[in-house]
């Protein structure tokens, strides 16, 4: 194998698509009939550091001049060769495969345990009877929680609705009353101002009429008489 080729295999890492394709090719598929996958069957394919497909061998330089990018089977071989030569890619892939495996097994086992443990879980025959009854009634099962949710929402809404007017009654009435009083006050102010305007617009108010022509309704004083304006009495000087 040429040195530059071996160097390329050792320095370039797998592309994301190559890694994914290889990961997908190694992930176990479900049973052929599509029924429940045995946890034990999946567990049997658990990758380990000792037996995993990405074991990094110390004698892993058997690239034999394989090109890095090929199609089909050659590409798979090239990826496997690279994984033997590249500890970094092999380690990452091994760790990722192991984590995904644990995720699958744990999810599968957990769901199976949950289904068995659910108190509301009926047997297949009970489920069948239930489904047949509901099919006759024409009602989906999942609408029942929704119906309860809607009912709860309406109940909460109704209780809040019944409380809101009470709060408004106690807390909002004074401002409302103030508002009611405010309108007449404004009207009375305007009326008062209009009245003042009218009063001012008259040439001489009735109360001021005596001042406007003080001599009009008085007899002329004699030369020796002085009118005391404070008392209104006439003082005669001799």
């Amino acid at each position, binding site marked *: 194998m040429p040195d530059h080729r071996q160097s390329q295999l050792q320095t370039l890492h797998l592309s994301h698509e190559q890694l994914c394709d290889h990961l997908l090719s190694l992930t176990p598929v479900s049973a052929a009939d599509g029924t429940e996958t045995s946890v034990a069957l999946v567990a049997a394919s658990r990758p380990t550091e000792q037996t995993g497909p990405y074991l990094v061998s110390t004698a892993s330089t058997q690239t034999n001049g394989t090109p890095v990018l090929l199609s089909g089977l050659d590409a798979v071989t090239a990826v496997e060769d690279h994984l033997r030569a590249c500890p970094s890619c092999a380690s990452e892939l091994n760790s990722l495969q192991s984590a995904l495996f644990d995720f699958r097994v744990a999810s599968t086992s957990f769901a199976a345990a949950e289904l068995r443990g659910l108190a509301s879980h009926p047997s*297949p025959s009970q489920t069948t009877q239930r489904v047949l009854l509901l099919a006759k009634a024409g009602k989906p099962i999942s609408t029942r929680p929704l119906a309860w949710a809607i009912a709860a929402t309406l109940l909460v809404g109704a209780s809040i609705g019944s409380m809101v007017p009470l709060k408004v009654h106690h807390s909002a009435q004074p401002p409302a009353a103030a508002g009611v009083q405010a309108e007449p006050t404004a009207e009375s102010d305007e009326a008062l101002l209009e009245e003042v305007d009218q009063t001012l617009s008259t040439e001489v108010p009735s109360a001021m009429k005596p001042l406007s022509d003080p001599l009009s309704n008085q007899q002329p004083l004699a030369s020796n008489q002085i009118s005391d304006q404070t008392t209104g009495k006439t003082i005669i000087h001799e």
Partner: protein
Amino acid sequence: MLEQTFHPASISRSGALEGVEPVVTPFDDLESVVALYEPRIFRFLLSNLRDRDLALSLTQDTFLRAWTARASFRGDSSISTWLMRIALNLLRDHTRTNRFRFWKKAAASAVDVADVATHIPQPGSSAEARLIASEQLALIWDTVAELSSRQREIFLLRFVEGLEIPDIANVTTLPVSTVKSHLYRALGTIRTRHSGLATREKE
């Protein structure tokens, strides 16, 4: 493709419209179908919804819908694929609304990742290895929750249900190339997070 394994003796004739020849479907023996496929449908819905009660309700709805639409089952796909497609449609209908997201947060039957972690296979592993496995599971669990709904569906169909890519394309009614694209993206996100965790563990 997945094969259906139904014994002919278990198949009965369904009542159809009067005057029309009844159509024979595997779903006429509903009890057998439920017994065979309920765990899988429930698991798929539970891993998506992460709510026990909701997953059970939708599982039963899946069989209800399959029963009512059984006359349209022509056997072009396997029973499992057909049921999974129904379940996926129900799931999408249910998760499409914001109402679901609100109730999901408040659900008392929501699944905790710590409960799932107790099911990690740990044959003879050390305490440190178990801790690392739990952390990795939690990381994938959280990352899957953050994926787009389409990526999550496809990821779970492949890495939990173990469906082949053509079967996933059949269930999701998406082209194979689109399925692969979603898988690459989902794995890209998980790979990034996983690498970060591995780096922290080494430190």
